[in-house]
């Protein structure tokens, strides 16, 4: 997956959960990622965050720590 499309997809998920009230939004993103992203994609995300995670929404960065 190109980093651009990974960043966009992850940020899109975060954008939705940011609008949801009264939940742990980072957990919402983390759960969504772990339900629907294949391990390769999750690993790529985690590695990308470790590399600085440029362009990623903070919520994604937080969620990636809970994967």
């Amino acid at each position, binding site marked *: *997956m*190109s980093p651009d*499309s990974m960043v*966009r*997809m992850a940020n*899109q*998920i975060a*954008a*939705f959960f940011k*609008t*949801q*009230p*009264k939940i742990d939004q980072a957990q919402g993103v983390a759960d*969504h990622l*772990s*339900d*629907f*992203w*294949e*391990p*390769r*994609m999750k690993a790529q995300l985690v590695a990308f965050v470790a590399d600085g995670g440029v362009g990623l929404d903070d919520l994604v960065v937080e969620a990636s720590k809970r994967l």
Partner: protein
Amino acid sequence: MKDFVIPWDGVDGNGIQDDRDMGTPAKSGAPVTLTIDGFEITVPTGTSVMRAAAEAGITVPKLCASDNLEAFGSCRLCAVEIEGRRGMPASCTTPVADGMIVKTQTPKVQKLRKGVMELYISDHPLDCLTCAANGDCELQDMAGVVGLRDVRYEAVETHFATRTASGPNPKYMPKDESNPYFTYEPSKCIACSRCVRACEEVQGTFALTMEGRGFDSRISAGTKLDDFMTSDCVSCGACVQACPTATLQEKSVIDLGTPTKSVVTTCAYCGVGCSFKAEMNGDTLVRMVPYKNGKANRGHSCVKGRFAYGYANHSDRILSPMIRDTIEEPWREVSWDEALGFAANKMRGLQETYGQKSIGVITSSRCTNEETYLVQKLARAVFGNNNTDTCARVCHSPTGYGLGQTFGTSAGTQDFDSVEHSDVVIVIGANPTDGHPVFASRLKKRLRQGAKLIVIDPRRIDLVKSPHVEAAHHLPLRPGTNVAVVTAIAHVIVTEGLMNEDYIRTRCDWDEFLDYATFVSDAKNSPEATALLTGVNAQELRAAARLFATGGNGAIYYGLGVTEHSQGSTTVMGIANLAMLTGNIGRKGVGVNPLRGQNNVQGACDMGSFPHELPGYRHVKNTDARDVFESLWGVTIDPEAGLRIPNMLDAAVDGTFKGLYCQGEDILQSDPDTKHVAAGLAAMECVIVHDLFLNETANYAHVFLPGSTFLEKDGTFTNAERRINRVRKVMAPRNGYGDWEVTQMLANAMGAGWTYTHPSEIMDEIAATTPSFADVTYQLLEDKGSVQWPCNAEHPDGMPLMHVDGFMRGKGRLMITEYIATDERTGPRFPLLLTTGRILSQYNVGAQTRRTENVAWHGEDVLEVHPHDAEVRGISDGDWVRLTSRAGETSLRVTLTDRVSTGVVYTTFHHPDTQANVITTDYSDWATNCPEYKVTAVQVSLSNGPSEWQEAYASQAAQSRRITPAAE
């Protein structure tokens, strides 16, 4: 056409249950008892004497009546005598009354009937022996029934003789053969007007009228200058089916003769899932006739299911397996053993080199449940991974997610009959008259009875205004703003206090409602605030919202114009919110109804095709769900989700995904951003395409396994109303094997050891593992005709309406649906928005319908452009234009129309040489990766022919399709 009752009715396994023509429609009123020919019979009030007689097993002669049409009373053949009444009333138009005493056969009525028949016959060319309807003609039958023995009238003038004594017959009317599938032979018309009424009442197109008077009466399609093809006729076949004579006759019957046996099966095209009788001569299919007991279609059809089956015998069909080492080589025809061995070795080799997760499958929404189940089982049990996805990914995956989150099940809530009880219908992001024609006919019938319609679509679809149907409101939104519009409707409902508070309090989570109410009430969600963005007039939107909330039973039908967006899942939630807010879930006439694109989209989702879900929508992370399959299959199932189609392609480009088994799908044509798909396929080392034709994806394939058509195998399809319908084998597979057998052979070549001998055994395994299918068996389907899941101990007859006493998940969940603009934006380079759709005569990528006479209606994809947008670009109607987006460019012809608003252009994606998907981007739904087909920023400019890309593509395709036949 008459009903063939004998000789095959009741033959085991053909699926036919009593489908006699009862003469007039069924009624539902208080019981009334009368006596007919000495037999007492009780029927509902409002029933005709004719139908009451039929219920008692007495057939009254008739010509102008048919039980799918309101009685008309024109032929007088059905006269009867009723004690205490004068004259001989027509039994088809006379309602029953308590204590009535009817005689259907007296010397007086017999004489009258003979007289009627004599008149008909005097202007009829008595060429019965060579007539296409010989043996299938109600006029013939009635002549026999009334005992017609001679004709006393000497016809002075006729319409059938080409010449009279004095020269050419001025009254002679030639045949109209313009329609590719049926002929109109006016000289045989008896002016019963069944066809006219069928076109009006059943189809709702109003293409036919009765012209002329008395002796000269004949039907006419369109105006005097029209023939069937130039008229408004949509070739649904309802008139042909209604015609009692050979006047309207299928060309296939003219060519092949009348059929001698008949088997009930299910249309393999759209998600309506119409039932048909496949009428056969030996193993030759003579015609497909819509089956009256089919609960989705109630005896109606559209041009695709009725006529477009010729692809099964098209010369392009591939019947031998083929392999090649690289896609630059020509194909080599080989034996099944060799092809399967080659495929199995390659796939196993790839797993050894690149890991267990380096290969996967794509199941098809066009294949049966049984086939789909096997393909996902192949991935999970034989490949040992969850890399299974389906083309439902690219159409209705947001439905699964959105309805799952809000209601707890990912399926439509109603049956199609429900629309007969609706008072207000919202159609959003769907074009039923083209995409789901039989449902559209049923909807239009309800609209003609007074129900109100709200259309939310960027285009002025046919439903907005067509004969005798007009939408109360059309909200022509800018593509990509569904969420804003749906939320604005909720804003009006909540701020004006129009919600159904009782319903929300009892059925939904009240706290969630309060949060939701606060959110939607925010002024930024008002129609006035969003109008600039959505382009929808605020007053019109308010009026629509009020109508939906207060107009009685409100139903929402939606299609891919909802799902195929970056916020597709959010819009589905928004739609569910609207239904819950207004209390429109859980009874007849209401509900949330996804119109599924392909025949078995619902089934493909149910059968565990998605990479995160086992059959029955159970996430692979759930140990108890995995246990069921692990103990039955004796394997370990991966608890992590697998790759979705776009992820497979990404992983292929990255070099970690190397092998694909693709059954019945053409991802190269149907998936967005063609160049990316092609790059993904090209990066794989083993692509196995299992299909009828060398489709576009096969240009990149190494193994081709020939597929079978729906006529050649047993199985089931599940339509948009969750209805499990049987598909019955009516002829042997031309390629040698049903698709389920091919998958089994591939699995076994990889060491699986499967031993299914019939698809019913696969269904038994589905039932044993999937709670919502627990009671489904082929025997049950034989007995009941069809059943809507869930079908289990709790719901032995299935479930026509869902969420009746509460939601599947417990409390319904109102969810906040904030509008978030897609990243796909117009700008100076790409100032227009492209949206895509389909057309009545073609289906999906067109692989089937392009190989039928349906091309007469749609031979190429054209681009709809608003005249204003065209003018500023110097484009005129019919010009070739170049359509460019940041993803690619293609060329096609233009048609100017104000159906699209300024700023919006529209095209279909049925033809590979246009390839609309070169233009579409890789943007997708946030939750499911369903591609954003419906919004692409584009530019349109004059061009003089195909683009370089199109030329390169065409030559690669030609190169790739070369075949070296097997040595004899």
